[in-house]
């Protein structure tokens, strides 16, 4: 496994702030997207993003290079954001529905309760509905959705990042999508499961 950031990480480990600055420059938006995806609050996402980089620079000596730097950064970002959400207020977790016996369940049909996204001429309205939908997800589900949909990580990479089983990742993604689809009025059929 070749880490493209290996050289910059080595220089930063040696104390070069400028080289760590190059890593910040590379990954700031990525970390912000992940933290915003979990927190759904601009100020908090900005603060957590910057705290993550300061913490990473401080703890860089702990990074042994067994995973890619980017994966390590993902893990710290997601954990920091989830910690903030949990400190902020309790959120009804969807983990209770993360049962591994998905295959024993009946097909899930979500019928349209409101006009579908195709009918929404206003992008702003769709964004607002999506925002409200995401806010109803637990931090863990928000994390998998942002890693999957925005960062386009594979299930393996998400599992490595979050330190969970790949089955858990698949289950969380399924239920997060289901919840979003339900709120957005998208019909979803379990027969088409493609995980």
């Amino acid at each position, binding site marked *: 496994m070749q880490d493209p950031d290996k050289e910059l990480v080595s220089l930063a480990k040696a104390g070069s702030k400028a080289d760590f600055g190059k890593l910040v420059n590379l990954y700031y938006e990525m970390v*912000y997207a992940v933290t915003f995806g979990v927190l759904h609050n601009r100020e908090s996402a900005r603060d957590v993003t910057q705290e993550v980089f300061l913490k990473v620079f401080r703890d860089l000596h702990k990074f042994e290079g067994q995973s890619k730097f980017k994966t390590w950064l993902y893990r710290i970002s997601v954990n920091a954001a989830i910690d903030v959400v949990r400190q902020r207020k309790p959120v009804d977790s969807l983990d209770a529905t993360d049962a591994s016996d998905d295959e024993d369940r009946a097909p899930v049909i979500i019928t349209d309760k409101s006009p579908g996204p195709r009918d929404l001429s206003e992008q702003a309205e769709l964004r607002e509905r999506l925002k409200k939908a995401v806010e109803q997800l637990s931090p863990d589900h928000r994390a998998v959705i942002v890693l999957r949909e925005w960062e386009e990580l594979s299930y393996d990479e998400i599992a490595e990042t979050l330190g969970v089983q790949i089955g858990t990742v698949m289950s969380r993604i399924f239920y997060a999508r289901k919840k979003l689809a339900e709120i957005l009025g998208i019909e979803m059929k379990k027969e088409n499961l493609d*995980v």
Partner: protein
Amino acid sequence: MFDEENEDLLGSAYRNYIAREVGRPEVLQNKKKFLAENFIDRPPAFRFAPAFVVPALAAACVFMVFNHLQTQLNPVEGPLAPIYSTAPAAAPISAAETGPQSSFGESEQPLLDNPVANYKKPRVVVKRVSSAVGPTMVYQKLYRNVPVTVVWVFAGGKH
């Protein structure tokens, strides 16, 4: 996970939502500020460079414009001639300085009888002016308590 079209729809809506957030100019500004405050090595001398460079450049510009205009308005042609000057002659001591001070309430009229006060300068007719020091002569003198620079230019050079 669910039908491909809806999956794409949901994914696309979510990506647009995050892209719009990440693409906000404030995010880039925050990043630049954070980098500048924490992870850019700059020598201390340059840290406040903008505070000094701008006024210095402004002053240099003003000087250059002023210098240019001065050169345009006062062109110096030919070799510079030396300017000689002489010290102004000492002003004669007036009677008011040497005479007795009049006391309070005493008229100064009697001073008119003073031979010094009645002294009349002989009429002087200047027929020819010459300079022993060069073609020009510059000096300063007080005229009604205002310093005045007097420049004599002797046509035809030194006489």
